[in-house]
Each structure stands twice: as structure tokens, then as C-alpha cells.
């Protein structure tokens, strides 16, 4: 059996949101750091958990520059819990998120939250890799 050596990261974003430049750049930085990155666009958040399971990823990284943060993240955490994957997969969320929302996300089990103006994409890479 093949042994998994590289960290596998699913980077994903709603297919309704065109703000994709940074998240695509992030995929490049993660690859440069030696991680295997699967980049997808989802129609419905439920697809993300399915992809994460099929691809056996260690990290799910989600980007929100427009809408859907509250519904999509809550649903994602609920589905991960249902599948017993909440402790297996690290969840990292970035985008236009307020301090108050960050607290809520941490409360429902999100591991890392990146808000506007706090840190750089390189910091995100470090946290994903940690």
C-alpha cells in the first residue's frame, strides 16, 4: 500500500463567487511548500465533504469573499461531524470575516480563521502546514 507522505489540501470555493485570484495564488504557494493541492469549485457545500473523503485530504481550506460564509461553514462542520471526520480533517477558512464571526466559527470547530488585513498568505501557508 502506498504510504501518504505529502500533506493533502482541498482548497475550494463556491462556483458563484468570482473573487478567485488570491485563493488560486494560495494553491500555488501550498504546492511550492510541497503539499498536494486539490482545487475545486462547489455548487453546494455538501460536495466538499464528499470530495474531501474521496481525496483523503488532511486539510479543507475554504475562501469567502462574498456570501455564504455562515450557511456553508455551519453545514460543512455538521457534515464532517456526521462522517466522524471532524478531528481528522483540519478546517481553515479565509475571507471577509469579522472578529465576531471568527469567534462563532471557532466555536463550531473551525481550526483557523483568516480575516482581512490580518497576516499574509504566507502566514496562511504556515498554519495550513502546521
Amino acid at each position, binding site marked *: 500500500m502506498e504510504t501518504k507522505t505529502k500533506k493533502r489540501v482541498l482548497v475550494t470555493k*463556491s*462556483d*458563484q*463567487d*468570482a473573487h*478567485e*485570484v*488570491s485563493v*488560486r*495564488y494560495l494553491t*500555488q504557494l501550498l504546492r511550492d511548500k510541497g503539499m498536494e493541492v486539490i482545487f475545486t*469549485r462547489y*455548487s*453546494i457545500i455538501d460536495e466538499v465533504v464528499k470530495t474531501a473523503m474521496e481525496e483523503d485530504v488532511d486539510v479543507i481550506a475554504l475562501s469567502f469573499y*462574498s*456570501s*455564504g*460564509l*455562515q*450557511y*456553508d461553514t455551519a*453545514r460543512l462542520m455538521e457534515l464532517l461531524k456526521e462522517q466522524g471526520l471532524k478531528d481528522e480533517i483540519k478546517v481553515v477558512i479565509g475571507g*471577509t*470575516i*469579522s*472578529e*465576531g*464571526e471568527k469567534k462563532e466559527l471557532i466555536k463550531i470547530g473551525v481550526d483557523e480563521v483568516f*480575516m*482581512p*488585513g490580518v497576516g*499574509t*498568505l*504566507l502566514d496562511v501557508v504556515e498554519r495550513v502546514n502546521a
Partner: protein
Amino acid sequence: MFNDDTLKKQQILEEQLMAAMKAMPAEAVPPPPPPVSNWSGIKLKPSYSPADIKDIGFQEIGIPGNFPFVRSNYPFHYQVEPMHMNQGYGFATTEETRQRREFLQQLGSRSQGGLVTAVMTLDLPTQRGLDPDNPAARGKVGECGCSFSTLDDFSEYFDGLDITKLFTALLAIDNALPINALFAAYIRDRRKENWADMWNLPCNLFHHQQFWDAAGYPPKTALKMSTELIKWHIDNMPRSCPGAFDGYNLGESGAPPAMEVAFAMAHTIAAIEECQKVGLDPNIVAAKYLGHPHACMNFFEEVAKLRATRRLWAKIMAQRFGCTSPDALRHKIVIAQTAGTELTAQEIYNNIIRITVMTMAGMMADIEGMWVVSYDEAISIPTEQAVKVCVRTYQILQEETDLPHVTDPLGGSYYVEWLTSEMEKEILKIMDEMDKRGGYLKCWESGWIRGQVQDAAFKRFKKLESGEAIKIGVNKYRIEETDPEANIYRRPIEVEEKAIERVRRYKANRNQEKVKAALEQVRIAAIKVDKEWPGSGGVLMPALVEAASAGATAGEMSKIMQENLGYGYFSG
């Protein structure tokens, strides 16, 4: 541009300067400045002189209001017609959006000839062709725009407004055809008015097509649909401008200014050629194209880009398409949008200064109108306070300064005229490269366009990381401070619940047989567009208008079109 005598005199001055510098002790000679290139890659000199523009014929520059319109489309401009304030807005429900429009009017916001700006930002599900009750719309209804999917939504927002005094643009992207069909049906059936009286700028679906990895339709199909939208508006709403020369979204995605114009121009040429296939006259189509460029922080590069775009447009329309109508030869830059990518989440009030510089570039290039974005763009959709500053930006520049007193005040500047010509050459160079690669459509389908845009975006990120490109307060002079809590707008969940309830009720209370029959006609028309093009040109929009009239929702129309015309795909 200059006679030999002038050029000779200039040469003498330069030689004298060089000789004087040589005579100075070595330590007194200032070090040469480091080489500088603009974002489009054009190398700049420390200063410019007549020698730099000696080869530009006077006819290339001319006078404002004359071909090739590099200086302005008009002999006099802001002196009599202030820059149009074409900023978009829209969030939550039609009610909140209506209140925002009233607030903007109260501040004195105005579009061309005093029309009321109704550039409506629609929410992501609407832009995608999804009704609020679609599972994929969950959590996104009414958040970053207003939700529109039925005739009732149009009634709620537009009832009581004089449609002849509105400058409307419904930012529907992939959903452009169904949304404009609903608008037309609303005007005809509910208002019993003549749609020919409207000034509509139906957002063309191309705004995201060329570079987005999740576009709604395949490239060839999207070109046909764009043609359908243009043809219907030319035939029915002659005041409308259904063509979008969109550089803004390319710029936001990373394209430097010259690349932005090259791709937008190549797209427009392909789109006009597609229109010719269905029998439309380029003289009319070209006149229906409005410019929506990006405006970044490189002030002179942007001024030169906008001037070069107008000149190139005039030449291409005259030489390639044989246009003769002045309206077709003038490229009207109606919505230049200040760059969101230049704005920062840190120290957000600095963005007001950035936005002012970008707005001034638009004014100095003598363009028709702008969408001045709000200083909080990096963190949220605009607050009331932030849009107030936007409106005040136009007003202060127009009414407190001397900027509007003289048309094209930079015209004749050695540097600006040189740079305008260099930008034009750079744009043409990229367009030639596309021709060598098999033409615009091939470059689009193969993903070459999006690859170029992405490479440029990544280069910019790397420069920001290394400090080669500077963002004050972010990668330079940064101080650690706690910014005030970002005021990020989230619409209350009830907005979504209400929208779902409304669309369900709408679907329940209509003549289902009539809707079914009308949607069948949409399906037949879509197949004809797919299989019998260009002979079938013009069949789709009328079928959509009738379906809207019968009670079909935008989502239902979009679904049938995608099922029969195909979905967009990722390439490159």
C-alpha cells in the same frame, strides 16, 4: 509633430547639458535613476521631450471631439456635462435597495443628462441563474446584491418610477438574458409602457467569461448568447447599450492595463463579427458598446490607456468594420471602475486617497462616467457612510477644483502622448500574439487568456510579498494597531426565507400550462441557436420574453438554456 529647427534646438540643449555634466567633478554628478517600467511593461525614461513624439503625426492626436478621439469624444465636456456617477448598488431585498437609491439621489448622484442611476448589483444566485429556492442558493440570497427572479421582484423595485428617467443596468452576468427578458415583460405587460423609451444597459454575460474558471456557458455559446442580447436590444430598445467592452473584471483578476485592453478589444471584435453573422450592421453594433475599464493606481498609465483605447477603437471600427457613423467611432467609456484590488483592509481610510487618484485618472482621460468604489470594498459591501464619500468624490473633483475647466488638459504633453502611443503599440502586440495563436476564440477556449491573466496576478502578488510593489500600511510603514471592528454587512436570514417564500408562492399562483408551453418554446429556440446558427439568430430573446410574460422565473429559463446550450467549463 515638430519641425527640424525645433528638434535641432532640442538636441543642442541636450548636448549642452551632457557637456556640463561631464565637466562636473565625478562626486557632484547625481547618480542615474533606477530603471522604471510601468505595469504594462513599458520602460520609462526620467523625462520626455519633443524628440519622443516627433514621429506621431498631428492627425493621430488632433483636437477633442474629432477622429480618432484620443483627446476626447467631445469638443467640450465636463464644462457642460459632469462625469456620470454610475456606481452600482443593491443588497438584501428590493426595499433596502430602493432606500439606497433614494439616499444616493438625496446626495445628488446623477447619471447622463441627470438620469437616475439604477446600476443594480444582483446577488450571486441571481447572477448565476439560480432562483432563491434552488438548493445551491442557500445562504447566499440577498447578501451581496439584490435577489431578482420574477416579475413581482421588478414590480416591487420599479413600480412608481419613471422608466424614461432611469439609467438601468441589472448586473446579471450569466443570467443576463432571462433577467432582461423579465424586465422587458414587466415594462410591456405590467406597466403597459413602450420599452423603446428605456435607457437600458443590459449587463452582458461576458463580464466574467474570458477568465473565470466557473463561467456559465461554453465560449462559442456565450458569443451567440451575447449576440442574441445585442440583437434584441437593437431591434426593441434602441436607446440601450447591450455591448460590454469589459476590462474591469480582467483588471481585477490581474491583467495589467495593456493586456486588459487587448483582451477586451479582441473580445469585442469577435462579438461584433458574430453580430455581423446575424445580419447586424457594425455601425449600429459598435455604437452600442460601452466601456467598462479598470482604473488602477498608475495614474499616467491609466490616462494613456484610456486615451489609447479610444484611438484604437476608432481606427479598428473605421478600418476593420468600415464604420462611418460618429457614434460607432466614438468609444464611450461610461463605467470605468476604480480598482478594488488596489484597496486595503488595513487602515481603510487610506483607500479614499487611492480612490481619488484613480478617479482623477478617469477625469484626466476625459471619459464619460465612472463607478467610484467605496473605501470599505476590501472588507464589505458598501456602508451608507462609504457610498456618501463616493458621491462626494465626484462632486468635489467636479465642483471644487479646476479639473473640469479644460478638456483633455494633458493633451500635447510629451510624456502623455508618447505613453499613449506606446500603450497602443503594446495592446496591438498582445492582439497580434493572439492572432498567431489561432485567434481570440482559440485563446479563450484553450485557457491561454486566463493563464496570462493569472500569471500577471501572481507576479503582482510576488512583488507585493517582496516589497517591490508597495502598499502603504500593509507592506511598508506598517504599524501594529487594532483596527476598529470591520463593519461587514450580513443580511438577516429572514431576507432569504422571505425570498424563498415569495418565489414559491409566485410559482404556485400562475397558469402552469401556459408556463410549460412558453418554456418549451425557449427550449426549441435554444436548440435552434445551438444547431442552426447563425440562421437562427434572434429567436431566443423573444421566446424568453414570452416565457417571462407567462410567469416563468429567471432560474427556470436559465436551467433550460444550460441544459440545451451547455455549461461553462474550466480551461487552463
